[in-house]
């Protein structure tokens, strides 16, 4: 849980925003709120002026920011070049061979030219001496390379190294279902859960080695406490499950380990070796194979028949607690109505994780299912209605910038928590719900 970026007040809205915008997302500002509120129609001309002004301000600010951001490095390189070249008139060529964006490169180029001139260097395109600057990159970060070539002498080289900063580019995903970011972290997140206690909102985050409790503070989550999870060897594709009980306790399940604590936080949290079954729903639990990444197939209380091992089991029909959908480790998705087991048709694009979420629309409960693609690809979630023999998509896919590594229904069943392992290597936990008005 190192330096997590987090967003409190989850479950509001997150539609059409970039990932950066989502991280800075303020819960009180939602596109939906504007759409549903009866304001006067906007004036087109005013809008153009407003947008132009904002754009101009943004561009100016970007330039000033970008130039200022690299001041120290520009000054260092400039000083080194002048030390090698002196004030000899030289041609100057600057090129970008790194992942720096074009606008930042432009501002660095201008700043470097200014620094070199103010250091006494005469820049002339026809000069015999030449200075070639390459903004390059290596495994550790940026490397700026200056080659100073004077007639009759060996090329001299000046280097300025800049450690890697986290400036990865992100792309906006198409958004269809409602989701809100709960927590982002460089360390693995296995599950996350929220609860309300009096007027305070809490977030519980389960990682492989630690459980953290956070308290909402405006748009942030402040760390309250945490507990280490003693463990030796975990299986690969590690999974873990949080369960917020209605009795005021919470439980965390990991392979062969169970941790418990109280929502009031006064009681100590504790972890111990355990082969107890994991909660699937309020009523049902299932035994987890602690050496693998799936449930063994045995449920508590037992169903009318036994099942082979599965990744997820859910009850996607409101009011029908006999109806189950199992995502088997053999790749098949089966329904079970209390007496008959059927392989569901139309599940070719389904991944391994399928959980039921109550929405109050359609049949009242839908199945949220992870989508197509290997781990290296972007993943999706999509809502389905489940028939006796087949399934029907009832929402467009909700795209994520990474793969879904965990998907669990919350205790109350009206949303799910999806953990995404992003292509940048971090983990993001989202609350995902099915919105009726989509």
């Amino acid at each position, binding site marked *: 849980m190192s330096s997590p970026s987090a967003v409190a007040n989850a479950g509001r809205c997150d539609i059409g925003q970039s990932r950066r915008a989502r991280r800075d997302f303020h819960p009180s500002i939602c596109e939906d709120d504007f759409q549903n509120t009866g304001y006067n129609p906007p004036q087109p001309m005013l809008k153009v002026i407003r947008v132009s002004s904002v754009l101009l301000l943004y561009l100016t600010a970007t330039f000033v920011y970008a130039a200022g951001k690299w001041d120290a490095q520009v000054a260092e390189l400039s000083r080194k070049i002048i030390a090698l070249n002196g004030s000899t008139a030289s041609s100057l060529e600057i090129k970008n*061979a790194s992942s720096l964006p074009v606008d930042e490169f432009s501002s660095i180029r201008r700043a470097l030219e200014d620094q070199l001139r103010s250091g006494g260097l005469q820049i002339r395109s026809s000069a015999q001496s030449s200075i070639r600057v390459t903004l390059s990159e*290596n495994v550790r970060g940026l490397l700026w390379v200056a080659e100073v070539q004077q007639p009759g002498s060996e090329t001299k080289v000046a280097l300025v190294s800049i450690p890697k900063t986290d400036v990865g580019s992100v792309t906006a995903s198409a958004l269809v279902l409602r989701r809100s970011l709960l927590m982002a972290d460089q360390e693995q997140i296995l599950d996350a859960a929220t609860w309300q206690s009096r007027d305070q909102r809490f977030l519980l985050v389960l990682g492989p080695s630690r459980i953290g409790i956070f308290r909402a503070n405006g748009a942030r989550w402040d760390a309250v406490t945490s507990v280490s999870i003693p463990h030796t060897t975990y299986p*690969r594709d590690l999974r873990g499950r949080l369960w917020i009980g209605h009795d005021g306790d919470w439980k965390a399940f990991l392979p062969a380990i169970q941790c418990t604590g109280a929502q009031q936080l006064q009681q100590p949290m504790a972890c111990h070796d355990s082969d107890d079954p994991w909660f699937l729903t309020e009523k049902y639990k299932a035994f987890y194979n602690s050496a693998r*990444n799936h449930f063994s197939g045995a449920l508590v209380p037992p169903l009318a028949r036994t099942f082979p091992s599965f990744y997820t089991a859910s009850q996607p029909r409101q009011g029908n607690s006999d109806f189950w959908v199992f995502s088997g*480790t053999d*790749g098949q998705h089966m329904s079970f109505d209390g007496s008959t087991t059927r392989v569901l048709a139309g599940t070719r694009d389904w991944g*391994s994780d399928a959980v039921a979420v109550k929405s109050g629309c359609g049949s009242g409960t839908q199945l949220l299912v992870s989508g197509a693609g290997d781990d290296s690809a972007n993943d999706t979630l999509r809502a389905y209605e489940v028939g006796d023999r087949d399934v029907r998509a009832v929402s467009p896919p909700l795209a994520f910038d990474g793969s879904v590594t965990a998907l669990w229904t919350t205790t109350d069943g009206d949303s799910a928590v999806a953990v995404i392992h992003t292509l940048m290597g971090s983990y993001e936990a989202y609350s995902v719900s099915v919105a009726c008005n989509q």
Partner: protein
Amino acid sequence: MRHTAFQWLVISSLLLAMVVTAGARTRPRYGGTLRIEVSASLWDPNGIGRSLTTETLTRVDEQGRVQPWLAMTWESQNRDRRWLISLRPDVKFHDGTQLTAASVADILGGCTSCPWKSVQLSGDKVVFELDTPSPLFPAQLATAHFGIAKAGVNGAPIGTGPMRVTQSTPTSATLVAFDSYWNGHTFVDSVEITASRKLRDQWLDLGVGRADIAEVPAEQARRAQQEHLRVVTSRNDELIVLVMNNASATMQNTALRQAVAESVDRASLLNFIFQRQGELTAGLLPNWISGYAMVFSTAQNMQHAKELRAQLSQAPSLTMTYDPADASLQLVAERLALSARETGINIRTVPSPAHWDLSVVRVRLSSFQPSVALEDIVGTIGIDHKTPDDSTPDALFQRERELLKNYQLVPLLYVPNGFAASDRVRNWRLNDRGLPDFDTLWTEVRK
């Protein structure tokens, strides 16, 4: 010739018949056996078999930072001349014995030409005594040369890695997942490796379903794409370099070495032999590691090469060697000889071993730590290497420049390595060492 063409036609047809499906994203499934065919020897230090069975004390990540592996912590004394290593607890060798400081000292203590003069015990710590201060010693321990393994039957390693050897012949081995592996059971239950297998046969076996993973060298990457193989390639991590023999009396002449170096047409090597897979280099480190490779010019300078040749009193006749098992290196050698001939320098190309004035060789990058990688390259080539030092970017650059300035080493290209997999193999990707990533890949189990 016709026979060869026919064989390739058969392979192409079989491979085209393979339906490569983009399966749904599912959780990795445990189980199954993967059959892998490689051209190198079975326990090649950089090969799949070795990487699955043997681990090192440390690892270097893709940002060049040292990470704990079998070693949990380390500290230096005596100004980096003594290193104390604490081991990860509860790690077992495949024979069931515990990994201890004594076993590590026993394995590494017998190493000759290693960067330490002795390996001793101090309580539960391993103590390395070095001749010279080495702040990058933990990064050096991450290279494959310093894998922790005992010798087993037929040279099979008894290591601590995720798979243990259950059967081994000189050209094949069966590995099964090691249940007591400290870092978790692999998804795949077992791996069958067939070594010293010709590339043509590997692709044929892949086409008919007798193999799941086969090699795709850089020069065959285009052909593999045309045949719709599921190819994944590494970064450009293999250096092809021309080495001038320091012991050869003829090659003592700097002008001759420079003339040969400047006659080199790297672009034609890349375009025609390696099918544009890779990058030109005149530096020993690839640009993605050093960041400054553009400083070393890759341009051919035939005019200057001829001027240098003109300074020589007599027309030299040189011998260039190459690995006889590497057809691409033979082509590289012949192309280099052709360019040199244009300057009036005659070069005869012969397979090694033989008396040699020049040799064209491949060297695999051993580390993401730039300085360690650089010294390992020169050490592998057989040139006196120094203690790695990257205290400043300039120190690394100056060291590389020093290595190149007398034209004993002429870097030519950096090329990638690749592998192709059948559609049973899921989460198909390579790890940072350019090998199939068994941490994540899994296989559809045959029903």
